[in-house]
């Protein structure tokens, strides 16, 4: 199973892995949680993913100092066609952020029904993107990862790369209900993992698929990825049932913050042949 590590030599040091999971074992004393998180499986997955994270995608994380020891609703732009960005953000939060945490990524409904993939994701901490799930996790002091652009964000054609799509409002209402700060995050470089894509939206709709990417290349390229973490957005004194117009003011601020992080991130990204200018 470890043959690929010869070609991707950077593995997570065992001491660091022990340190990360010592903290997590204190939190998840039973080793499993009701959403299907399995600590020992998560450790194995992390051990496998880390060489990809560190060497293949050469992930850099900026803005670690903005994170404190409290739960967050992590809100990110979405890119990369197959949600590799979620996996990279979760790996960063487990290995490079203090204290390490298992981000509970909110995934699409179809994802949880997928054989193997759904279970593997759940064992690593992913959960169904359902409001009740989100609220239950936030109330337990977990940090959740949401992509308010949804499928519209991840499944973009090349000419739409780095264009932030409309944000849904549900995440902010959840943050208001649980009184949890929103942490804006931006991923730069994940769009170029599949650099030449046309999304056949009409055909996908007719076939009942969430997306249908047409591309000459279906193998993920080693585009260097940067994760930029913004400053936490404090929750205003607002009812979770406030009218959309009041909610939108705050969502626009969060969206603008992520757009600003993207602009800055694009300026400082590393060269890659497929980079969109």
């Amino acid at each position, binding site marked *: 199973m470890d043959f690929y590590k010869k070609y991707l030599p950077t593995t997570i040091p065992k001491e660091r892995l022990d340190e990360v999971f010592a903290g997590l074992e204190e939190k998840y004393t*039973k080793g*499993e*949680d*009701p*959403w*299907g998180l*399995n600590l020992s499986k998560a450790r194995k997955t992390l051990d496998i993913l880390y060489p990809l994270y560190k060497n293949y995608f050469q992930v850099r994380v900026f803005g670690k100092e903005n994170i404190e020891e409290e739960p967050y609703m992590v809100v990110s732009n979405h890119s990369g066609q197959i949600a590799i960005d979620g996996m990279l953000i979760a790996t960063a939060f487990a290995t490079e952020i203090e204290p390490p945490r298992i981000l509970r990524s909110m995934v699409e*409904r179809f994802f*949880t*029904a997928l*054989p*193997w993939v*759904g*279970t593997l994701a759940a*064992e690593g901490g992913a*959960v*169904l993107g*359902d409001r*009740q*799930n989100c609220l*239950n996790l936030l109330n337990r002091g977990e940090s959740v990862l949401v992509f308010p652009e949804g499928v519209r964000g991840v499944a973009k054609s090349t000419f739409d790369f780095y264009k932030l799509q409309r944000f849904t409002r549900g995440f902010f209402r959840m943050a208001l209900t649980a009184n949890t700060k929103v942490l804006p995050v931006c991923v730069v470089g994940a769009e170029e993992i599949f650099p030449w894509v046309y999304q056949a939206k009409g055909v996908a709709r007719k076939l009942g698929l969430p997306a249908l990417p047409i591309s000459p290349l279906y193998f993920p390229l080693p585009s260097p990825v940067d994760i930029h973490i913004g400053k936490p957005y404090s929750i205003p004194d607002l009812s979770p049932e406030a009218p959309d117009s009041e909610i939108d003011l705050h969502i626009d601020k969060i969206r603008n913050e992520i757009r600003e992080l993207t602009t800055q991130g694009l300026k400082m990204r590393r060269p890659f042949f497929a980079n969109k200018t």
Partner: protein
Amino acid sequence: MKSDDVKSILIIGMAGGLAKITAQLLVKKYPNAKIIGVDSRSIKGSIKTPNIQYKKIRYTRGNFEKLFRDEDFDIVYHLGRMSHADTSPLASIEQRLDLNLMGTKRILDLSLKFCVKKVVILSTYHVYGALSDNPVFINEDQPLRASIKHPELRDVVEMDQIATNWMWKNQGEIETLVLRPSTIVGPQIRNSMTRYLIAPYAPVCADFNPMFQFVHEFDMATILVRSLAEIPTGIYNVSPDECISLKSAKMALSCPTIPLPSFILQAGLKLISTGLWSFPQYLLDYIKFACITDNSLIKAHLGPEIFRYNTKEALLLSKLD
């Protein structure tokens, strides 16, 4: 409900393991009460406790009405839901519908007519359905979606709905409880799921590993007894806080498994179902997708620690004969 207020108790489904334990606990709690257990099945062994009588009767209106008229019950426990296991000699769909739907309605109407003080109905968490988009945790207000994919579960859902509709309609006249427990395990419970759990080399889905909540039979019986005095009219999930994945449960039971992709398991299900043991098709979904229920409502009445056995203890005890 005070001990002196309970003089006569009817338990329907007395041949079942849970009913027998509940009857014994009721004798301890209400020593002056007369307990009559009925079932259309024969009971294994004999009941030696003097306060408990067993009657094998068919669930017809005439039989039941005579029983209610003669005995003047204060409490009725309906623990006699018929399961979907094909090996049951009474498993024809007509009989199941008659018992689970018409029988439940008959029991409820007679309870009202003969001024029963409290009716406790044992439903199941299966009514919520095992679906890939189930939230964690499912509370009592969630829609009952079990029959969306499996029409054969219609009677289970409808029985629950008959009971709850009747409960709200008559709440001014009679106290009614509908309990939806998660998987009950124990040495006296031998339904399809417990037999599957304790069976060595039973196949499991290689591609899915759902979370489960297990309630030990003694804990369930204790809650049934406590419900008389401590839980008001309503619908309640009965489940522990603790959850365990199916594969971890099998490991805790030291039962080796044969992992197979779910599509192969589905195709092979009919082949592995024998005359002696069958695994209903719908249960395959319950070993693929989780159905984790919220227990906060029942805990609000019974307190935070309602279970004596933790999950691993409950599982290990279920292996005992």
